[in-house]
């Protein structure tokens, strides 16, 4: 993450439901935010909300889980999977989405974005 990214607070930590995405708008940019929780571990992710295959802003409404050990979101339109840590599309090497750091800080969810 480059230095000029700032942490922007988007909601209370209690507003998130585990394993269900939400979409945040930061400086006109749509970012899909997920809190994955399984077997006692919790991880926060941010990834572009726009689905590159349909051009629609819908990834926050995709199902999350893991495939071969990587946390992923599945596009709700044509079902491609995106690695939440790297943004890589599992079905198409040539496609990578931007990912964003997300953290929980004093009861707030914060995203690092320009």
């Amino acid at each position, binding site marked *: 993450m480059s230095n000029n990214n700032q942490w922007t607070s988007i909601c209370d930590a209690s507003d998130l*439901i*585990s394993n269900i995405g939400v979409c*945040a708008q930061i400086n006109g940019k749509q970012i899909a935010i997920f809190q994955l929780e399984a077997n006692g571990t919790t991880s926060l992710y941010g990834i572009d909300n726009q689905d590159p295959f349909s*051009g629609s802003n819908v990834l926050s*409404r995709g199902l999350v*889980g893991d495939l071969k050990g990587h946390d992923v979101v599945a596009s709700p339109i044509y079902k491609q999977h995106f690695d939440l840590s790297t943004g890589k599309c599992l079905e198409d090497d040539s496609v990578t989405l931007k990912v964003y750091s997300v953290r929980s800080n004093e009861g707030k969810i914060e995203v690092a974005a320009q």
Partner: protein
Amino acid sequence: MSKEKIIVVGNGMVGHKFLEFLSERDNRDQFEVITFCEESRLAYDRVQLSAYFSGKTAEDLSLVEDGFFENNGFKVYLEDKVVSIDRDNKTVTSANGEVVAYDKLILATGSFPFVPPIPGKDRDECLVYRTIEDLEAITHGAKTSKRGVVVGGGLLGLEAAKALHDLGLETHVVEFAPRLMAVQVDDGGGAMLRSKIEALGVTVHTEKNTKEIVNGDSSKMRMEFADGESLETDLILFSAGIRPRDELARDSGLEMGPRGGITVNNNCQTSDPDIYSIGECALWDGRIFGLVAPGYQMAKAAVDAIAGDKESEFAGADMSTKLKLMGVDVASIGDAHGNTPNSKSYSYNDEHNEVYKKIVVSEDGKKLLGSVLIGDAEAYGGLLQLMLNDMDLPEHPDSLILPQREGGAPAGLGVDALPDTATICSCNNVTKGDIIASIDGGITELGELKSCTKAGTSCGGCAALVGQVLNAELEKKGIEVNNDLCEHFAHSRQELFDIVRVEEIKTFEELLAKHGTGKGCDICKPTAGSILASCWNDHIMEPSLAGLQDTNDYYMANMQKDGTYSVVPRIPGGEITPEKLIAIGQIAQKYDLYTKITGGQRVDMFGAKVHELPLIWKELVDAGMESGHAYGKSLRTVKSCVGSTWCRYGVQDSVGMAIKLEERYRGVRSPHKIKLAVSGCTRECAEAQCKDVGVIATEHGWNMYVAGNGGMKPRHADLFASDLDDETLIKYIDRFMMFYVRTADRLQRTATWMNNMEGGLDYLKDVIINDSLNLGEELEKQMDHLVDTYQCEWKSTIESPEKVKRFNHFINSDETDSNVVFVKERAQIRPATTKEKSDLIETVAV
């Protein structure tokens, strides 16, 4: 060069197979082919004849592909019978007076049912079971009969008994021998078979010799037996064996067997080298073969001899059989009676579960010679292969028939041990090698494999084995055949369903912790969501369940290509008041939604943004409407025609029934979507025969059809039961749907489920109508639970502020998605194309 003239007498199963084999020859143009067909219709599948009673039409049974005769230039004389052969001039003469010359003549005249010479046998109520016309006569005769008797307790006799039983007659079987199926089955097997068949309500009389048929007292006739006893009946079906139709051959002086049959050699040539005989009229090595598979092999040998470059010979055939008689598995292999000198046998008799199994082995215990299986014939395929391929038996041959208790290794040898030359389907002569070739060609599904190789499509006896070979080969290729749902669960959907039900699991987390690994994915989560809904029916938006739903279920609307949603209120049976129509119109107008009448008799409104969904639904619910579940894997629509209320032909209130069904099954979650339809009469305006469950009104009630499908691979529904009253109809649909919900794979419509079901329609009828698994009550109870706990998902959602909050596009802003852009077309909105969008957005941005 003039063509060689071939005449085929008889267009039955084998005669037609001969024509097919010939048409596949490169040199078929060298022949002029003519066939005489005595019956009023071209060749049909006699083996499946009984299916005619369960709704199959003559057309369904036809073996003749569209345009077969035209495309091949073959000539057929329909409803014309050859009456004589002039071997000196090489011509045949037909009943209609045609005289046609031949170079080669093929006699494929089949056989006729033997009717013992009993005084009174020619009464109108005495029938046989061989042709479609015979079946029509039986159906007709059954209408005025209460009781029916089948004379003959062999294979065909029991099939005929089932037909009478299904037609609603009190059914009796009268057999001369001391046991049923005397040819194929030993004493132990015969006894078990008898007790099973009697349990189904058919009375069996053995060692009965009918002396005379006279006028009855309580019924139309009375059968007088040699032992002094008698039996009253309204209808008699003779099924006492077959006799070859060899009269043409006899009259023209061909060599015959002492008890009939046209003598042929290994090429199926008769004593006149220009005349061949194939099928049930031919006598080879002193034997008549009353099954279709050997007939097909004869057809092949004859075609090879006449048109082939190398000859293939008919070398006899295996007469092993497996069938389901009245729902009872019966199989007989090879030397079932242990007639081979010094052979030894093992038998297993389980009176509790009514299973009898016997194997006959060679003196040294190394080879299998024969077997009888009653009540459980799963081992048939494997045993038959052991015998046919002369394979060595395992160390303890009895392991082949002893039940497998927990932890035990599967008995017998796997299909892997079979050589590629092993015949898997004898009816259609398909070897293991043929199946492997198809799989190499890209086939991965049982249904596809059957239609491409024809394996398993005739008697069906080999179906299980075909499936095993397919799975074993796919596995070898590394193609996934395990039924594991996904990497997170090493279970099939059906197994997970049972686990959830038995262990009363209520959440995905619990299921994953106890039976899975990892975090889940977009395959197992919706599947688990659907199973949990089918079992417990909690609201899908509950926090513990919401994360399992596909976006369509989560937002209770279908996502469109631009990220907006469609809204479909339920319109049960397609009936709607003007007030509700107006309300829909006003709401669509207010939110500027694109409206369209769907193919399912209701109205779809497109272009709703996610935050608008609760607002739109609030207004719809206020106007008295409820969710149409257009998004769910659940009941979609129950289509109806207008029915007897208005239509001059209607015989029942189809709209009323459709609404009743739609209101009963709305919201029920299932492996895939379910569609129903109800038509008010046989004109079928609601197209019920392409639905998962179709209902068609009759004078006396309702006919129920199952497992139809439109969509990608259309399938006509099968007639499941006739003339049901309302209550029974609903009982059967309850059971059918719940059984589907419990046992189907994920995203498997009822049509594919049915196509892959072992035992097919008969099995399903057994489970649902005869309650053979003793599940009926439980299935009904489960359905009742779902019906009782139904709630309109939308109504309870808009009543909960917590849930409504989730419909905002952004968590940190009340703005909406600027990327959703519409343009107008034909006076309504549609999503803008990318180009239109960039033009529009640019203009706005500047």
